[in-house]
């Protein structure tokens, strides 16, 4: 058997607490859990709100924009499906109570904490992963 292509690391997409995040991503949206009672964002997603104690299953769509909170360039190979070098970014999403999401950029990205980032949606097999990249200000940036 010659299986040259390593299997990518894919998320569970049907979890009762987190599945809607990936369902929204498949529609091209970033969604976060929000408490139906006190309207606090509940990230990581779960039913029980730490702020007010209510249980709810509401989500809200947020802008696919954020600010770079931190990052690392990974040089040491761990998983064969994520070849090095690559950059892992931690992005704080606009208009949220400090919701941060992780994304991968191929290669050694030139970055600065606080810079503007935008989401894009990567299709891997039958799963959609919201990824993050710097917002380019030059004219070639249109995807």
């Amino acid at each position, binding site marked *: 058997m010659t299986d040259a292509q390593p*299997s*990518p*690391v*894919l*998320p*569970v*997409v*049907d*979890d009762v*607490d*987190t599945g809607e*995040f*990936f369902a929204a991503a498949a529609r091209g949206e970033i969604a976060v859990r929000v408490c139906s009672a006190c309207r606090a964002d509940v*990230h*990581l997603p*779960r039913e029980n709100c*730490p702020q007010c104690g209510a249980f709810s299953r509401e989500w809200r769509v947020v802008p696919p924009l954020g600010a770079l*909170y*931190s*990052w*690392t*360039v*990974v*040089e*040491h190979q*761990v*998983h064969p499906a*994520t070849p090095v070098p*690559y950059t*892992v970014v*931690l992005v704080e999403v606009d208009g949220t109570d*400090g*919701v*941060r*999401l*992780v*994304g*991968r950029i191929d290669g050694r990205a030139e970055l600065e*904490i606080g810079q503007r980032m935008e989401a894009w949606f990567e299709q*891997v097999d039958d*799963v959609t*992963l919201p*990824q993050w990249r710097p917002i380019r200000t030059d004219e070639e940036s249109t995807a």
Partner: protein
Amino acid sequence: MPDQTWTPGACSIVGIGETDFSKASGRTPLTLAAQAARAALADAGIAPRAVDGVVRCDMDLVSAPALADSLGADDLTYWGEAGPGGSGPAAMVGQAVAAINSGLATTVVVFRSLNGRSGNRYGLVGEHGAVGGDNNYEEFFLPFGMQTPGQFFAVVARRYAHEHGLSIDELSHGLGSIAMAGRAHANNNPAAQFHQRTMSREDYLASRMLSSPLRLFDYCLETDGAAAVVVTSTQRARDLAGVHVPVLSVAQGTGRGVQPGQMFPALLRKSITTWPSAATAPTVFGRAGVTAGDVDVAQIYDCFTITALIQLEDYGFMAPGRAAYVTPEDLSVGGRLPFNTSGGHLSEGYIHGMNHVVEGVRQVRGTSTNQVDGAEISFVSSAPPPGASAMILGVDR
């Protein structure tokens, strides 16, 4: 908050034991655990059959009854565990103290055993099946390339530099000082895996980048081995042949908003540059009735250099943002805070915080290979994240 009652020094560590530390033990974790536990019991002068309590780490492959069985214990009346993972060791000693003080057990073995190099290595992502679900939240991290503890702490380190206005070179200076201090102590410790390998600042800076800004020598040593201590009441300890070391305090803490899961979700904490160690600090010092300034020697959990650096600040040994300016001399015997005097996880071996407990006991006994003269207040920390625990050992008066 309701009143909590803590009696400093009610229980003591009366025995310490370790196996050799290696990359390939050639033994099972049960064998390693039994060797460390029997060594600790022999050190205490207690017959193994008399053990009636065992506390394990929640990630250990050895169950408490399995170790009791290997020790030939007559009856196990208490077993417990703490964690997650490296948050455990000080908390595990706390479990033993709580069991003894409440009458559930008299003689408790606390252990950690792992084939951390030849067996289950950390940071390896499974090759099959989707990740996450059931509130472990790995689905938000592993598929996006955040896959190892080193990558996690690299993101923390860069954020730390940013918040304190440090260049990456300045950050690396502080991280290098921590690595060098541990290494120099390992060079005096024949049991340390890096006993024979010296390291200059140039050597540190020349080590290869694994996940920027963290280099190879910012990472701890994957290790096979085990460490154990024996805890009993201080009253009983006074009748034993060996030197007992009272547990002046032990504390666990999470603070608010600790986040679920084992590690990666901690990137969602309000701050990723102060940790549950900051919440644990007032408890552990308050219970012992001492301050950070009273500490003679500290064993600080160092899965990575940055983990130790942040705790130096969280526990109040240095002001926020100042630990990056530490020098190897500051952290050496004779310096302002002798640190990880066995070599720690970075240079002795990674027994998941348990070897730090053992070294903390040696310092009070005066038997360390990097002995601090007259050490009486000996501090030990475990993890964070996700929670933290810490203890202060002292002398019986």
